[in-house]
């Protein structure tokens, strides 16, 4: 008789090492293609390993498309890009049935798959599409399947959406509703490269053309990568820390919420945020070469998991308090180990 849950067993160092090597090589290639965005590359890869969708926010020309395109090429994954516009219809993404005449002269309705049937979909400037189109695609993101004409079709495995939006030039845009934003694992801000990086780009990239990446990740390797992800252990205290973090984002929770949350947050994060944080922390642990999730892994992903899930109040805008500031205060206020030492007794820092 097989038990419902096998007792956990840590990945041995030998079992974990191939995955670590593979992710290291992927990150190295990404760093070679897109200069000066190492942190972003780790988070994007972590999001991919966590099988989450990522919302990239950044100014035009900072390399969002190049990053996603390179990632697809490295991992031998199918890649599609859709430029969202106000007149984009759901069928333009999901696909539609068309009347087609076959060789024998019979006519029948045939499903013409849209660009969403891919492994990696770059939804460029997603906030420019109409809400109807956004809703159609975001449903597919959550369900990982598409229903057209009464017939449900599963999307490719794996399936990731990496959407981008421009923080400026908001005229004629349709901001994503909170319920739809919640379906993104991360919301990552693509920073402008600094002077040194720009100089290096000018030295090494003629007309901005990045070196063509070589696909080296096989399907088996990718499956092994996700298999390793499944065996990353989330210790109980770390899981409780994630739960306390998410619970503390709700200002109505008087006992857990720190002052900065009570002051600047109107609505906190959903349980989906806790799940996303746990999964992405597992991915970060894997990237760090560990079979277990530590507090530092959670703290590394918490700002990117929570920043688009917190609805800030008007005083936050007035005081120029960003979601990152709130999450930073949240992490600083909550003790990871939940010691609840008596007041006045504290652990010496750096002991």
């Amino acid at each position, binding site marked *: 008789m097989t038990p419902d849950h096998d007792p*956990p067993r840590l990945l041995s160092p030998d079992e974990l090492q191939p995955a670590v090597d593979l992710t290291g090589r992927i990150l190295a290639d990404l760093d070679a293609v897109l200069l000066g965005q190492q942190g972003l590359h780790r988070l994007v890869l972590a999001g991919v390993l966590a099988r989450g969708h990522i919302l990239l926010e950044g100014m035009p020309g900072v390399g969002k498309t190049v990053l996603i395109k390179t990632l697809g090429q490295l991992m031998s994954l199918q890649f599609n890009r859709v430029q969202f516009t106000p007149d984009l219809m759901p069928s333009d993404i999901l696909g539609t049935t068309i009347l087609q005449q076959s060789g024998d002269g019979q006519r029948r309705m045939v499903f013409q798959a849209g660009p969403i049937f891919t492994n990696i979909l770059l939804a460029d400037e997603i906030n420019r599409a109409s809400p109807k189109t956004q809703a159609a695609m975001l449903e597919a993101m959550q369900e990982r399947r598409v229903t057209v004409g009464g017939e449900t079709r599963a999307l490719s495995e794996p399936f990731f959406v990496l959407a981008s939006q421009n923080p400026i030039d908001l005229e004629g845009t349709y901001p994503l509703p909170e319920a739809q934003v919640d379906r993104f694992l991360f919301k990552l801000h693509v920073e402008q490269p600094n002077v040194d990086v720009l100089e290096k780009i000018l030295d090494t990239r003629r007309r901005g053309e990045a070196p063509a990446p070589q696909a080296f990740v096989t399907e088996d390797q990718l499956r092994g990568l996700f298999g390793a992800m499944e065996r990353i252990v989330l210790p109980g205290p770390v899981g409780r820390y994630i739960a306390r973090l998410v619970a503390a984002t709700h200002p109505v929770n008087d006992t857990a919420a720190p002052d900065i949350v009570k002051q600047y947050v109107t609505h906190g994060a959903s349980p989906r945020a806790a799940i996303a944080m746990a999964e992405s922390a597992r991915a970060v642990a894997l990237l760090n070469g560990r079979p277990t999730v530590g507090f530092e892994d959670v703290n590394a992903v918490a700002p990117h998991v929570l920043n688009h899930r917190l609805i800030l109040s008007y005083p936050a805008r007035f005081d120029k308090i960003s979601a990152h500031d709130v999450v930073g205060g949240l992490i600083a206020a909550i003790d990871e180990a939940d010691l609840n030492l008596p007041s006045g007794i504290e652990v010496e820092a750096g002991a």
Partner: protein
Amino acid sequence: MEQQAAAKRWRGDVWRWAWLRLAVRGSVVYTLVWGVVALVVRVLIEDSAAWLWWGGLGLIGVWGAVAWVARRQVPSEAQTLALFDRENRLGGLLMVGDVEGAEAWAKRAAGARVPVEPRLRWRGGPSGGALALATAFVLAAMLVPMPGPAAADSRLDVSRSIAEMQQRLDVLKEEKILEAPEADQVRDAMKRIGEQAKGDDPSKTWEALDHLAEKIEQAADEAAELAQRRMDEAAGAEALAKALGEGGDTLSPERLGEAMSTLAELMEAASGAPTLDGMELPEGLAEALSQSGLDASMLDPEMLKQLADAMEGRQAELLEMIESLCEAGMCEGSGTGKKLRLAEIDPDELLDWLESTGECDGEGLLVACKSIRAGRGGINRGPGHAEMVWQDPSSKEGVEFAPELLPPSRMRDLRDSQMLGASRGAPQDIEGAAGSSGGALTHTAAGGGSAVNTVVLPRHRGAVTRYFERTNADE
């Protein structure tokens, strides 16, 4: 395993720090309560400081209770290992120590095998300061003298005053000035006053003692005055008896009869109180007197001599009584060192007076005796009888009065005063008490409990200021 052992050690440290923290705070609270209770109890109950120290044993109970509370504040082992994991940056490896496969990772990470135990720190400065203040408070509550309660409930020691009065009372009783029942009544009153004397209201005690002392002094004064009168009468009788014995035959029978009547009158008076039993005369003399009715013809010179001796003895007896009263401080001029002397009356002069005067009754004879006695005033020739000398007035240079030691006042000396304590309330005038007069004590109520409330008028302030700012004390 080493991780569990380290966690156990660290949790023990947490328990010790938590216990210390709670013990200090609990001690602060308990000590403050202890101090307040000590203050209240010391105000209400006299001599309670000794057993109040036993209140310190309550600290042991407090420390025991906080030990139990501190145990509940110790983190669990899982929380402790999570802390170790975070502080040693082990990425969760320490938190899954019991999961299969963890040993392989523990070999790679030294911290996972023997984690470094984070050090604890307690910011106990404010608590320590509060404990020091609380300790100082309870020590002050225990050690600071409480003048109010001490004076309120302590007994007033009037034994010395009562002993002095007892001594005087014994003298009065011994000299039969006070009857035994009356003396016993005064003695009982003194005993009762001594037993009921309390420090909270000493004025009542002192007033009662003053009343008894005044009563004793009044009895002594009356007895001394009467004794002096009897001495004069006895001296007169003695002198008259001597005069009659020496020259009674020179008197006319009528004059002799008057003199004998006067002698009988003086003898009768001299033999009365204050001696209760009266004067005892020799048997022959007494029989002769009883038979003769003081007829001069029945008293020969020998009897008159015995009568004079008896009167002299009577004087000595009365003088001894007066001296006893003076020794006990119950006569005027006692303590001055003056010796009392018997009156010396010249019988010849008295005989001359008897021959020359027309009347001879008791009062007249006494007045004559006083005039005859040297230095006792009375009717005599006086300074005017001295010879007038017309010469230069005598110089006052080098002349000074003989120093004379004044008797102690009723207030006694400062060294005899007793510290009864300090009253917490404002002085109150005693209704009906006579006020003092004269100087700064004008309008000050007698019997204590009164404040000097003399108003210095503006026109006098300059003089008062100069008096207190004087540099020479003799000014």
